[in-house]
């Protein structure tokens, strides 16, 4: 197909109207020619001979009459070895490389290769001549850091093919042809280690999609025990500003028990990404012994970067996630924040003069959110291996009110809801996940009856607290008061976790199971006897103190065991 071009006839904000010559594709990429610069843009609406494009850069300086060149391709990303440890903008431009070439500020109209075409990788052939293959079939592999990076038949080759030629084990650059495959018509297709895939189309080059079952251990106690997330599942974290969404995401990106983490910083503060990208190269991953950066990809389109690229950044992240899932790995995609992405859609919809829905969001908001989360999942691959992509998105509801369109549309499609509460954050109770409002459809690491019991104590304790506000402490029975103290105790020593303490920041599965059953069986379920409320309060405060000290002691050490004995004595003290 010949490439088309057009002339700009209108400019409003980041949207341009282009008078077309020739045919264009919906979602095709076009470039505004501005002197030497080429401003990347995407077709979002076609009406008669006018195409409307959102420009991924600031539009300052563009004139009516400027030329737009179309590329013939939809917005795509490059897939191949070398993606890990990279920091990209929303369009897969590597930011460190941009910084090296252009200094402090982001240049306008520059596109760089996403992965290196110079670096050589040792290709190990797996498929043999004569093998039947199709999209996603493994041809060979290269070692990318600690992972086996599978070289696959590009995902757009959906027919059946026969391997005709495969390269020998050797070092190649990614554009080297490593296999030649033949289709039914006997035509040869060259396959290298890199190919492109349009970001807005889910990758489905697998055998079947399974339902998520295994738990994804995040090492945050309140999540794993009370509101768990499954591998291949979805969850959302809505919360007002200042409630700790980003800190929670950062902790998850550090400690979660997965192979690869993709962080999509979408329309949020640059400062938050900086912490990740400056610290991750120095933090060791206890599981692999390598730095955390080697298992991380950061897609960074912060709030001061152009809005349209923000809209595509979550798709870029999802595509990279799906690509690594194809290798049989467990991938976690953290999107912070999906509200900014929704707002980007709203801005563009407004410029297109579409009829607005609730709070001026476009009518298709809900379906777009659903489509995004549906890209998560556990899949069985052609070679029998299983990979998963888990998606966790934060939501920043206006005014902290969950009744707004983005939160509500998200809640309809996710498997777990971790609602953050401003009151808990104000009282410095972190993570500020509200244990009374949150829910999860996945199975906990702890026994179900224990979880139910603990939740029951929390609910009852809260009821007593509410009641005490009306009738006062003296109007509350000692029995109720103890329930209230139990709830507070459980909250204080188990739900709350100090993300800045090296030990308490992450609690492994074994410790969670042990501590949780100890708390439920030996404290929450136990009948204590107290003379009066002051004595009861004193007892629980003492116990909490000892417990918090225990939380700060590393698991399986003498110090921890000693501390446990100490608190056992406190518990026993009441029984006698």
């Amino acid at each position, binding site marked *: 197909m010949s490439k088309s071009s057009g002339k700009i006839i209108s400019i409003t904000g980041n949207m341009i109207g282009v008078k077309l010559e020739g045919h264009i594709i919906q979602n095709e990429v076009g470039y505004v020619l501005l002197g030497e610069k080429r401003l990347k843009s995407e077709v979002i609406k076609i009406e008669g001979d006018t195409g409307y494009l959102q420009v991924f850069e600031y539009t300052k300086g563009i004139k009516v009459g400027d030329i737009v060149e179309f590329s013939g391709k939809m917005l795509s990303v490059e897939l191949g070895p070398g993606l890990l440890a990279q*920091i990209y903008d929303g369009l897969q431009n590597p930011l460190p490389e941009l910084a090296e070439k252009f200094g402090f500020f982001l240049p306008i109209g520059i596109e760089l290769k996403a992965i290196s075409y110079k670096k050589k990788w040792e290709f190990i052939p797996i498929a043999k001549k004569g093998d039947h293959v199709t999209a996603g079939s493994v041809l060979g592999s290269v070692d990318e850091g600690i992972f086996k990076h599978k070289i696959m038949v590009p995902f757009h080759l959906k027919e059946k093919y026969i391997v005709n030629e495969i390269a020998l084990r050797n070092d190649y650059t990614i554009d080297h042809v490593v296999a030649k495959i033949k289709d039914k018509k006997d035509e040869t297709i060259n396959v290298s280690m890199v190919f492109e895939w349009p970001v807005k189309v889910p990758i489905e080059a697998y055998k079947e999609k399974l339902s998520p079952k295994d738990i994804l251990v995040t090492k945050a106690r309140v999540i794993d025990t009370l509101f768990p997330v499954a591998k291949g599942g979805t969850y959302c974290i809505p919360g007002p500003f200042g409630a700790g969404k980003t800190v929670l995401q950062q902790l998850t990106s550090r400690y979660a028990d997965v192979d690869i983490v993709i962080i999509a910083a979408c329309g949020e503060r640059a400062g938050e990404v900086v912490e990740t990208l400056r610290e991750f190269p120095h933090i060791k991953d206890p599981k692999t012994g390598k730095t955390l950066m080697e298992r991380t990809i950061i897609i960074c389109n912060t709030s001061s970067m152009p809005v349209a690229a923000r809209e595509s950044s979550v798709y870029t992240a999802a595509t990279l996630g799906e690509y690594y899932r194809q290798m049989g790995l467990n991938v976690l995609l953290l999107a912070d924040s999906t509200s900014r992405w929704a707002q980007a859609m709203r801005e563009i919809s407004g410029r297109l003069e579409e009829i607005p829905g609730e709070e001026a969001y476009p009518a298709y908001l809900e379906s777009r959110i659903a489509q995004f989360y549906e890209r998560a999942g556990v899949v069985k691959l052609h070679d029998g291996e299983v990979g998963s992509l888990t998606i966790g998105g934060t939501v920043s509801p206006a005014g902290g009110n969950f009744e707004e369109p983005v939160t509500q549309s998200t809640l309809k499609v996710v498997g777990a809801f971790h609602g953050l509460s401003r009151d808990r954050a104000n009282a410095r109770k972190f993570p500020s996940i509200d244990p009374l409002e949150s829910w999860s459809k996945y199975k906990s690491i702890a026994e179900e009856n224990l979880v139910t019991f603990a939740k029951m104590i929390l609910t009852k304790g809260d009821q007593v607290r509410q009641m005490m506000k009306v009738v006062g402490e003296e109007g509350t029975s000692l029995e109720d008061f103890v329930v209230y103290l139990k709830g507070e105790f459980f909250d204080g020593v188990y739900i709350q976790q100090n993300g800045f303490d090296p030990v308490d920041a992450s609690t492994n599965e074994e410790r969670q199971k042990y501590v949780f059953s100890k708390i439920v069986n030996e404290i929450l379920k136990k009948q204590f006897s107290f003379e009066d409320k002051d004595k009861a309060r004193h007892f629980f405060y003492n116990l909490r103190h000892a417990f918090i000290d225990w939380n700060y002691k590393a698991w399986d050490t003498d110090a921890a065991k000693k501390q446990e004995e100490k608190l056992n004595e406190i518990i026993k003290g009441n029984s006698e």
Partner: protein
Amino acid sequence: MRKVCTRILSIVGNVLTVRAEGVKYEELAEISSSMGKSLAQVIRLDKDKVFLQAFQGSRGISTGDEVTFLGHPMRVGFSSNLLGRIFNGSGVPRDNGPALSENMIEIAGPAVNPAKRIIPSRMIRTNIPMIDVFNSLVESQKLPIFSVSGEPYNELLARIALQAEVDMIILGGIGLKYDQYMYFKNTLEEGGALSRSIFFVHTAADPIVESLMVPDMCLSVAEKFALSGKRVLVLLTDMTNFADALKEIAITMEQVPSNRGYPGDLYSQLASRYEKAVDFEDAGSITTLAVTTMPGDDVTHPVPDNTGYITEGQFYLRHGRIEPFGSLSRLKQLVNKDTREDHRSIMDGTLQLYAQFKETEEKKAMGFKMSNWDEKLLKYGKLFEDNMMDLKVNIPLEKALDKGWKMLADCFTPEETNFRTELIENFWPK
């Protein structure tokens, strides 16, 4: 070659339409009318129709007035001669000094590459315990002061400006009342800080559209100074007026409003300004403090709400005090680990107890009997408010921490306070 138009097609609100070709998006134009010369900026192009936003407003403009396109976007001069100077919202001197002409830079330049940012690590001490102890201000941070009309937010801003350890101060006044403008000028002059300050002041009497340029001018100048190694503190007051100016233009342009009439891109507009706060590797930094008044004391109003999501925390100023609840400095964790080992524990511990005091106070107001514990909390709450929250308190961080321990010891036994045993052994007053 400058393009000149002599026929204005329409004047709606502060937006003019003319026919012209070859005009660039966001280019500036000069309107010569009976009211004198004023500036306007291209905000939309549709075929040969050009929509201009007139900074001085459209009052007195005739359809026959001359519009000259200047061929460049809004610019501001940059040199060290700027120090001690005062300009209005269009960059015209307010202080009878010479106009800006040399070394012109474009305002609202591109964003900083996140990969070039560094983790902020220097605390800016203010000697206000509610800031230093509980929510330390960090170099390169952007923080709003959420307040309501009538609160002494400008006084607080001026005090921080005088006491903060920075190289220079840039004040951006947006819809600033004239007497408040004079107050800033006089206070900084008396404190000897005027010579290291630059003012861009749009007063409440000026046309509202003119205020739209103020944040960009302040920040572009700040950016240049920061790149030359200066540690710059930018003070903006009041950003709600800025958002209202955006709203006015959006509605004139018939954009679909999203929330209470504000345009859908309010978040992006505010973010592109606040995100200019930065710590450059091997150069200076920009720290931004911005007053945001909350209409009706409602934090869920679109302006404070969007601001809160952008900035790295917020200070609530209410009843003349910085509220401990809700106020937050997100970057404090980066600096308060290196001050004194008890800093974080005092910060969390004293505040948790103050939260309990608040509950007890409520109970007391409802007439419930006070338990032993309640009495302790009541005593503590009063001490906390007098020693920490009162804005008159002007002491360095270490003194404030010592005061914290003393307050605790005056009211409680160690185990009632939920501190780690090691800290209690080291710091509990004996």
